[in-house]
């Protein structure tokens, strides 16, 4: 700790940080542009000038850039000094000489860092009378809009895109006052994190193109804290609504999970909520929408009373919905709506995470680990933000060199200059090519079984107590030895694996490595990626597998099935689901989006998406996080759990109508299931008021309240009331900082842009005030009794006439809901299969030619891509694509001619 005197007042601050972040953490308003909490300082924009004094007798002082100056003890600085203030004013005046006169048509307006900083410094009139510089814009694809005239040359975009996110196709061009930020030519931005440019850019050069389709100012949005539903990481998001449709997704800072950024699937995948594929009509039966009302529907469902009803849960529905369904149909009739493989793997992952001994690492932990081994997971496509965290982890070892050179870690330009291209250890073992390879120490492409064997070998080398692997090639042996040595040498090694390869052995191998590491050193971790946003939550609730449900139905024992937010055709093969549906008389489907299963429903109940529902999700590290309803949907659409409670009135003697809100459901759940204990305490209960007030979802500048619905009726109706949380749907309420778990938007006086998050943190880059939200359910203690998995798979051998079909994931296309969003759907590649060159020549197939094969009796005909990065005898099939029928992979593909 050191003492820092700011304008004569002493403050206790932690040393080692720079003056700018220290001043911001203390609550001072100091303008800046080029500095970003995640990117560090480069001292390029000269905006954050303050005065530093030598000692008390020094009256003149000198101007310094606060972002480049470390805090020292008993330092005297002045923010309010006249000269410093004038300097800052001049800098912004120069930056603004070329800024176009277009705030009115700029999407950034109202949440613009440049606007905020200009107001903060006091600059108002342009004295420079010469002409303004202009640029041509570029077409950068469906996600990002480019308006180069607005640029103030702070370099944050390329620093994020290239240095932080590892992108290759955005750069600075030209020189002096002509510097241009863009691609070398028009085209889609390749990085999976391009959406963050909209938040990183302090002005409106890069803006969200999907927001532009239905543009709304930040102050006009009804916003609520939410959780991303497009992969298992559970990134925290802010979702904003206007006029009954969801308008945008923004990052919601979480110190442990997503930090300052989001991936493009999470940011732009929201449009399915407004898409024409949404189910908006409350009820329809047998395809007809006429003459249906809720009373008739409920009557029809209550006629099922007494018959055998099974419930099929969903990995993309909330804990609450799955729980109520399980209670409704009873323990023995509840089935998890996931494939056999996912069922097995999720249970395995749950066992590993809950029993330990290794600690489940959060994304922040991964960023800080100094050796990473990824086994069987293409992170960029299955858990994109984790890939971003891994990209930061390779800097950890080189950063030690920076520290020993007495350079502060935040001094980004100096640190990168010293590090150059040096990278810390990252080992990848994947089925096919993955984008992380450019930062990897070494990469190995193999079939799942062979990957698992390497994993088991590494575990054996770390701790000879685990089973040895026979018949390894020399290459594999030396690779395993290298990995084992590196992991043992590291201070915070982490093993990352997951279910995307569909192989138990891979996960078991990863578990063995982490257990062995944990035995040798206490600071290691494990990250296991699961298929969907609530896969772990569903697993915790527990139930039987989908195949059992199909068996029961085939025996004729099932009279009705309630399917909860689940497209069964994505979890089981077409013939199997068709058979199940035809042998079950009543198919009640609750879902929000039209899919193959909803088309087969006899009774279809439209439910709310994440934006229209309250619920809790459990992410891949076992962190239970609550998402809040953003707006009240039209047409009586409700959360699935609300519908199910209502259905229980007709179906059960002892129904659940005493559960009035989300809190009642989650309390009952927390009481019943031991492992999720405390899940009802992650947000304040709905009766809590702050100073007698609710937390408003709307900003104090929200406009149009007396006009937006005046075309329907000039008398304003009462705003909807929220019974599920202590937030309100209006602009009235508590105006201070709400508890960290219910921050609907980041705003602070003078800070309208997303940069206002500084004001919500304990200190810059640390956790939110009051602790980061959510509850970690798995905290394995120091468990020394390590039990290794022992069955090691046989070496993979190519079989003549067959190829082993393995799943390949795509960030755009493999996930169900985001694929229904307009912008994301434009980025989905054509269906294909990948095979090795040797297989291609033996099949006499050239690039682009179609090959035919059969998996589980289903025939496929897809164009070939030839790659040397896939093992011989293996075929990679993209999963989740509309034109690629589902199969439970890995499985043997029988080649046809």
């Amino acid at each position, binding site marked *: 700790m050191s003492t820092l005197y700011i304008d004569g007042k002493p403050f206790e601050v932690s040393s080692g940080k720079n003056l700018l972040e220290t001043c911001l953490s203390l609550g001072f308003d100091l303008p800046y542009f080029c500095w970003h909490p995640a990117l560090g300082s480069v001292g390029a924009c000269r905006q954050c000038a303050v005065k530093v004094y030598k000692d008390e007798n020094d009256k003149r002082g000198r101007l310094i850039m606060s972002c480049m100056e470390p805090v020292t003890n008993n330092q005297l600085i002045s923010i309010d000094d006249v000269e410093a203030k004038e300097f800052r004013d001049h800098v912004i005046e120069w930056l603004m000489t070329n*800024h*176009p*006169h*277009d*705030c*009115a*048509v700029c999407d950034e*307006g*109202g949440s613009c860092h440049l606007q905020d900083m200009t107001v903060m410094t006091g600059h108002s009139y342009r004295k420079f009378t010469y*002409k*303004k*510089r*202009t*640029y*041509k*814009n570029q077409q950068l694809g469906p996600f990002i809009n480019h*308006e180069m*005239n*607005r640029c103030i040359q702070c370099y944050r975009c390329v620093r994020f895109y290239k240095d932080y996110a590892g992108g290759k196709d955005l750069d600075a*061009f*030209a*020189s*002096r006052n*002509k510097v*241009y930020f863009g691609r070398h030519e028009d085209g889609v931005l390749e990085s999976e994190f391009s959406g963050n440019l909209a938040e990183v850019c302090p002005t409106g050069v890069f803006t969200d193109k999907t927001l*532009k389709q*239905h*543009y*709304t*100012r930040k*102050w*006009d949005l009804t916003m609520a804290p939410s959780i991303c539903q497009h992969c298992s990481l559970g990134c925290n998001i802010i979702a904003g609504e206007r*006029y009954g449709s969801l308008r945008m997704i923004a990052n919601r800072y979480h110190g442990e999970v997503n930090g300052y950024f989001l991936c493009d699937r999470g940011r732009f995948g929201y449009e399915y909520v407004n898409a024409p594929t949404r189910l908006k009509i409350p009820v329809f039966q047998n395809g007809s929408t006429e003459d249906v009302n809720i009373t008739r529907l409920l009557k029809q469902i209550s006629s099922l009373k007494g018959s055998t009803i099974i419930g099929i849960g969903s990995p993309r529905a909330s804990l609450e919905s799955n729980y109520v369904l399980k209670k409704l149909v009873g323990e023995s009739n509840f089935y998890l709506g996931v494939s056999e493989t996912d069922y097995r793997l999720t249970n395995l992952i749950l066992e590993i995470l809950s029993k330990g001994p290794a600690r489940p690492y959060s994304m922040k932990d991964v960023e800080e680990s100094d050796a990473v081994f990824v086994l069987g997971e293409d992170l960029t496509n299955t858990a994109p933000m984790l890939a971003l965290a891994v990209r930061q982890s390779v800097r950890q070892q080189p950063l030690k060199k920076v520290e020993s050179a007495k350079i502060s870690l935040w001094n980004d330009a100096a640190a990168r200059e010293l590090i150059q291209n040096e990278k810390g250890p990252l080992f990848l073992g994947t089925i096919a090519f993955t984008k992380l390879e450019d930062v990897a120490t070494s990469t190995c492409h193999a079939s799942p079984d062979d990957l698992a064997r390497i994993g088991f070998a590494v575990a054996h080398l770390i701790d000879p107590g685990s089973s040895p692997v026979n018949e390894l090639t020399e290459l594999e042996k030396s690779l395993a030895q290298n990995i084992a040595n590196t992991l043992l040498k590291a201070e915070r090694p982490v093993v990352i694996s997951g279910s995307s390869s569909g192989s138990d052995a891979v996960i078991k191998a990863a578990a063995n490595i982490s257990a062995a590491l944990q035995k040798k050193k206490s600071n290691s971790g494990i990250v296991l990626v699961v298929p969907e946003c609530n896969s772990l939550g569903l697993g915790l609730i527990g139930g039987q597998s989908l195949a059992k449900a199909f068996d029961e139905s085939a025996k004729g024992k099932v009279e009705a099935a309630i399917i909860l937010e689940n497209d069964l055709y994505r979890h089981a093969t077409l013939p199997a689901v068709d058979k199940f549906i035809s042998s079950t008389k009543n198919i009640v489907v609750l879902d929000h989006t039209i899919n193959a299963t909803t088309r087969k429903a006899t009774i279809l109940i439209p439910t709310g998406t994440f934006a229209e529902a309250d619920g809790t999700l459990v992410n891949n590290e076992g962190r239970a996080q609550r998402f809040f309803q953003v707006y009240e949907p039209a047409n009586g659409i409700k959360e699935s759990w609300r519908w199910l409670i209502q259905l229980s009135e007709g179906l059960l003697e002892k129904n659940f109508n005493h559960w009035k809100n989300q809190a009642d459901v989650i309390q009952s759940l927390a009481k019943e299931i031991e492992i999720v204990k405390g899940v009802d305490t992650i947000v304040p209960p709905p009766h809590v008021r702050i100073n007698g007030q609710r937390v408003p979802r709307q900003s104090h*500048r*929200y*406009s*149009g*309240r*007396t*006009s*937006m619905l*005046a*075309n329907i*009726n*000039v*008398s304003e109706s009462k705003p909807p009331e929220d019974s599920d949380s202590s937030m309100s749907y209006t602009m009235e309420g508590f105006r201070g900082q709400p508890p960290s778990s219910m921050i609907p938007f980041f705003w602070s006086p003078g800070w309208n842009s997303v940069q206002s998050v500084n004001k919500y943190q304990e200190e810059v880059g640390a956790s939110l005030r009051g602790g980061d939200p959510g509850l970690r359910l798995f905290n394995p203690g120091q468990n020394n009794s390590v039990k290794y998995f022992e069955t090691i798979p046989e070496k993979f051998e190519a079989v003549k006439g067959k190829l082993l079909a393995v799943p390949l994931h795509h960030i755009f296309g493999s996930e169900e809901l985001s694929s229904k969003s307009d912008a994301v759907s434009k980025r989905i590649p054509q269906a294909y299969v990948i095979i090795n060159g040797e297989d291609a020549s033996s099949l006499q197939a050239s690039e682009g030619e179609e090959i035919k094969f059969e998996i589980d009796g289903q025939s496929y005909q897809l164009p070939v891509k030839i790659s040397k990065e896939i093992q011989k005898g293996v075929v990679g099939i993209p999963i989740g694509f509309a034109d690629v029928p589902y199969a439970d992979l890995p499985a043997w593909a029988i080649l046809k001619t």
Partner: protein
Amino acid sequence: MWLTFLHMFHKRATIQYPEEKIKLPARWRGRIVLTRDPDMGERCVGCYLCAAACPVDCISLQATEDENGRRYPEFFRINFSRCIFCGYCEEACPTYAIQLIPDFEMGEYDRQNLVYEKKDLLIDGQGKYPGYNYYKVAGLAIGGKDKGEAENEEPPIDVKSLLP
């Protein structure tokens, strides 16, 4: 009594409205209109500042774009049953689009009829501020005005040039 008598010879303040109309100054704050620029394009660019400035929140709109990138309001609604004619919207408007004009004769028997949509608000003229064309000074390219063609703008930079 004498004073009262004298008043009989004063000029009358009362006029015979509605037969006789009152003369209002040009800056009188009455009915709100949306104006057009000199090229007859809609001046409103849908920036939402009028709506934000409105103390009774009686303005709502939705911005949209034509194929050339020119922004305009998809709908623009003013609930005059709430409007207090404070003129803040006009003050906030960066494009001189929204203007208050000297007309107050808006009485209706049905309150619903006081909800004005864009078709009721948009006039075919420039109103009080002739000659101003926002897009001529803004840096955004729209149909018929490319980058560097606005007032006080250099031609677009050639990124590939090495000349000083």
